[in-house]
């Protein structure tokens, strides 16, 4: 018998940097993405899109398109009307046109679809559909949209003064949402000795996963069953919505998310293309494939952010924050299709008091319609947490500059202290755990912060220095793992998650999940949790997800919820099996259950090391000779409804050198310390952090979706939209502390979004810090060389 330590290592359970199980297929070109699917008789769909942002549709002429050999159908809103499918509900309680119904609301909006034998003929047919538009003035700026007399976008909502989230105060207004205590915050400001205010724009960006969105819809007219393979981060929710829209019983709808080439929030919403492909398959009785191209992906699918924020801090003279006030105008585009839990139209934005003990806080968000694509997805973040963290981390720096306080010191003075956890914030969240002070000191020591500040001072004093040096700090707290179903639901379905585990007679196991990986490595890490819980080697555990006909119902993967919610469901399902295994072991060893000790992969009779039953033996017994009165088999299902969110945190530090001549910003160093609680697979965690930091770098330094006054998107290819290559991408240094979540079964908190959320303000803080001695308190993202160069000129840097 091997020693326990050896046996534990052989399991490759929690804490092991286990190599990834999914890699074998991906490195050999045997992945199975939606576009790889080919079904007999499959047709191809393509979409006719609006060239203008705001217009009435006068006429659509399909004749030329239909005359092309190989074209099977051209569908417009008028064709969907009899089916009542020309509009569909959004996740945010609004409706969205599936195909433009009399009016176009944004450039590249879906106007018609064509279905043809292959994608080339479909593309020809798109060109041949003639659409006559009567252009209307476009509304691009959300502040202009709220002016009296502004052109009204949503004529379908005429006269509706109540929306899904309360009162609408203007035809282009969607909702006003408030959190915190306004009176308390106002009182804090009235009595404050120091006040700062900063307006900032978190620009519209796009998650831009490398694989675009698409589906293959296959309706079987004989059986009346619909199977759809789809790039969806939430296949079960899609099944429910498709059933509601189509009238097909949910038991006859099967949604399969196969391998997904990155999601980052972009693959949460239900897009018109999916609906049209399903309709086309039902109408034509043949499988229909739709895969969008890159321009379509950037132009029409879920964008992120677009928050115009106005922040204020009240503080004492020595830098203790006493109050926070935030007002936001949120540009939601033409339809409110934000992907948030139903009750939260601004997501979890009210985490914006951050890692700080702020006694009074208030925020207000107003959602506005403009002639832009709908979306508002969480781009590698939990619902609007990125915006919240950006706001507070910028504001703390603004306050530090006002008080001439060091940016690390102001954080020390305001952090929630570790003995305050669990901590109730002024917005009402209960932060489960944290230890910011120790983590901050670890980072400051690792980078020799004092030496960096001394170097910066020397550079500032040296007129011959060719660079401006900036040091950025971001000490964030996230809120992930949505969520407790008493608070969080999607279209009424609680945001729990699920796991089913079947342990086979010979001791291997199959786990089926309600989540779906888009690169996170679930097949590897979920198995590690089971391995540790049940003593079954992770190599012998198969993990399946993404097929609604086999997996238990789950809400999917986004908002860093897989580990906090589904990871907990796995542990709980495994514990049900463990409890049964103990009964079987007690029966086999002829002792009471209480006389058994668990050790790695076996039960031992306490005080008698020779009397053991391994999990492998127990598995066989479960099917061969279960104890009398106990049903055979070894399976469990668990639906986990988390009691709270989890609150991962981190301390990030960036050092940048800005070229005084060109405005180019070089990232000299980026040090990221993350605390995600229990670490399941350190290799995968580090990989996720590298990726998130790189996305954060892209957002902070280059990504934006600029529109002209007519609502034309000026950058919708990868020529214009910044995705960094290996050359621009900085080198990342990672570190960690471990503060387990007290309410999660294995103490894990989720990690993959922290580096995106935390790095973006860190970059901005670093760039602004380079100019801090010149009285610059804020610079808008993205920090391209051009923008930074303009600041250099404006600040009179020679």
């Amino acid at each position, binding site marked *: 018998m091997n020693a326990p330590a050896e046996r534990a290592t052989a399991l490759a359970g929690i804490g092991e940097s286990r190599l990834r199980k999914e890699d074998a297929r991906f490195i050999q070109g045997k992945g199975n993405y939606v576009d790889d699917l080919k079904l007999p008789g499959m047709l191809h769909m393509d979409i006719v899109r609006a060239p203008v942002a705001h217009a009435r549709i006068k006429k659509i002429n399909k004749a030329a398109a239909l005359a092309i050999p190989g074209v099977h159908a051209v569908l417009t809103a008028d064709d969907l009307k009899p089916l009542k499918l020309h509009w569909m509900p959004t996740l945010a309680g609004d409706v969205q046109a599936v195909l433009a119904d009399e009016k176009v609301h944004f450039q590249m909006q879906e106007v018609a679809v064509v279905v043809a034998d292959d994608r080339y003929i479909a593309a020809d047919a798109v060109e041949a559909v003639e659409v006559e538009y009567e252009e209307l003035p476009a509304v691009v700026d959300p502040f202009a949209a709220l002016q009296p007399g502004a052109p009204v976008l949503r004529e379908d909502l005429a006269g509706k003064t109540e929306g899904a989230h309360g009162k609408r105060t203007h035809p282009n207004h969607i909702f006003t949402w408030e959190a915190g205590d306004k009176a308390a915050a106002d009182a804090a400001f009235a009595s404050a000795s120091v006040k700062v205010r900063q307006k900032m724009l978190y620009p519209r960006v796009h998650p831009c996963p490398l694989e675009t969105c698409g589906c293959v819809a296959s309706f079987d007219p004989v059986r009346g069953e619909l199977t759809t393979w789809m790039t969806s981060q939430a296949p079960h929710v899609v099944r429910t919505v498709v059933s509601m829209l189509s009238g097909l019983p949910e038991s006859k709808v099967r949604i399969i998310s196969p391998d997904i080439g990155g999601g980052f929030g972009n693959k949460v919403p239900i897009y018109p293309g999916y609906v049209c492909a399903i309709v086309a398959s039902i109408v034509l009785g043949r499988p229909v494939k739709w895969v969008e191209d*890159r321009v379509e992906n950037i132009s029409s699918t879920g964008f992120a952010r677009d928050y115009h924020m106005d922040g204020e801090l009240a503080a004492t003279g020595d830098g203790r924050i006493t109050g926070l006030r935030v007002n936001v105008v949120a540009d939601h585009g033409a339809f409110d299709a934000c992907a948030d839990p139903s009750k939260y139209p601004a997501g979890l934005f009210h985490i914006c008091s951050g890692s700080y003990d702020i006694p009074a806080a208030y925020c207000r968000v107003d959602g506005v319609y403009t002639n832009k694509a709908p979306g508002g997805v969480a781009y590698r973040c939990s619902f609007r947490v990125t915006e919240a963290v950006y706001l507070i981390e910028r504001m703390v720096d603004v306050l530090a500059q006002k008080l001439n306080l060091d940016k690390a010191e102001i954080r020390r003075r305001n952090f929630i202290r570790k003995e305050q956890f669990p901590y109730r914030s002024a917005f009402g969240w209960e932060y489960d755990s944290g230890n910011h002070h120790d983590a901050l000191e670890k980072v400051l020591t690792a980078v020799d912060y004092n030496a960096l500040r001394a170097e910066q001072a020397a550079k500032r004093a040296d007129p011959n220095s060719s660079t401006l040096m900036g040091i950025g700090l971001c000490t964030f707290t996230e809120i992930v793992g949505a969520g407790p179903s008493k608070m969080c639901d999607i279209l009424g379905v609680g945001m729990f998650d699920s796991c089913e585990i079947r342990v086979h007679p010979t001791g291997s196991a199959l786990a089926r999940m309600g989540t779906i990986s888009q690169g996170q490595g679930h097949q590897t890490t979920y198995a590690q949790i089971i391995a540790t819980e049940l003593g079954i080697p992770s190599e012998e555990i198969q993990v399946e997800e993404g097929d609604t006909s086999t997996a238990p119902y789950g809400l999917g993967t986004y908002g860093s919820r897989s580990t906090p919610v589904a990871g907990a469901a796995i542990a709980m399902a495994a514990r049900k099996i463990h409890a049964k295994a103990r009964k079987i072991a007690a029966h086999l060893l002829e002792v009471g259950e209480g006389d058994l000790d668990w050790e790695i992969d076996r039960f031992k009779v306490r005080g008698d090391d020779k009397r053991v039953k391994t999990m492998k033996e127990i598995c066989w017994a479960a099917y061969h000779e279960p104890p009398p009165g106990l049903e055979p088999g070894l399976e469990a299902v668990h639906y986990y409804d988390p009691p709270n969110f989890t609150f991962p945190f981190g301390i990030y530090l960036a050092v940048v050198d800005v070229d005084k001549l060109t405005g180019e910003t070089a990232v000299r160093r980026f040090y990221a310390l993350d605390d995600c609680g229990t670490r399941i697979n350190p290799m995968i965690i580090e990989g996720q952090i590298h990726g998130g930091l790189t996305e954060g770098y892209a957002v902070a330094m280059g990504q934006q979706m600029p529109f002209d006054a007519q609502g034309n998107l000026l950058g919708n290819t990868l020529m214009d939209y910044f995705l960094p*290559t290996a*050359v621009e991408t900085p080198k990342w240094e990672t570190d960690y502390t471990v503060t387990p979540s007290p309410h999660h079964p294995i103490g894990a908190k989720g990690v993959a979004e922290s580096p995106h959320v935390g790095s973006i303000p860190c970059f901005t803080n670093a760039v602004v810090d380079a100019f801090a001695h010149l009285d610059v308190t804020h610079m808008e993202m993205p920090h391209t060389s051009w923008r930074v160069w303009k600041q250099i000129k404006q600040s009179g840097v020679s």
Partner: protein
Amino acid sequence: MSKKLISVQVNGRTVEKAVEPRTLLVHFLREELSLTGVHIGCETSHCGACTVDVDGQSIKSCTVLAVQCDGSEVRTVEGLASGGVLHAVQEGFYKEHGLQCGFCTPGMLMRAQRFLLENPNPTEEEVRAGMAGNLCRCTGYQNIVKAVLYAAHKLQEKQEAAA
């Protein structure tokens, strides 16, 4: 549209097919030959997910016509392993966690193996420049660079053993 007969060596096998002149190489490989390891990420030759070898060069197959490859030798990710043994770049990406969602991976691997033929003993900076035609949204490249260096080392060892 009238079709043109082309003959292409794909992963060591001669393929003769009639294709439309406008058919892109990537669609020829994916749809005619079912080599779906070749991916489409942008259709504008920016992302590199469609990278394959054509006559000893890295080529983005989304912006090359199949008819342009008449008489050429094409190699895709499906032809990378031989005799059930992974190529060093495949092993490197696995061992160094050089992939996450896997969508960019075939293009990365094809570029990496060609790059290492062009520069068998690269520095980290040379790897970064040599792989700059391939975008990844998941990994942040750090482990991809490690993976390519792993493969370089492995290939060198192999060559030394053979010598």
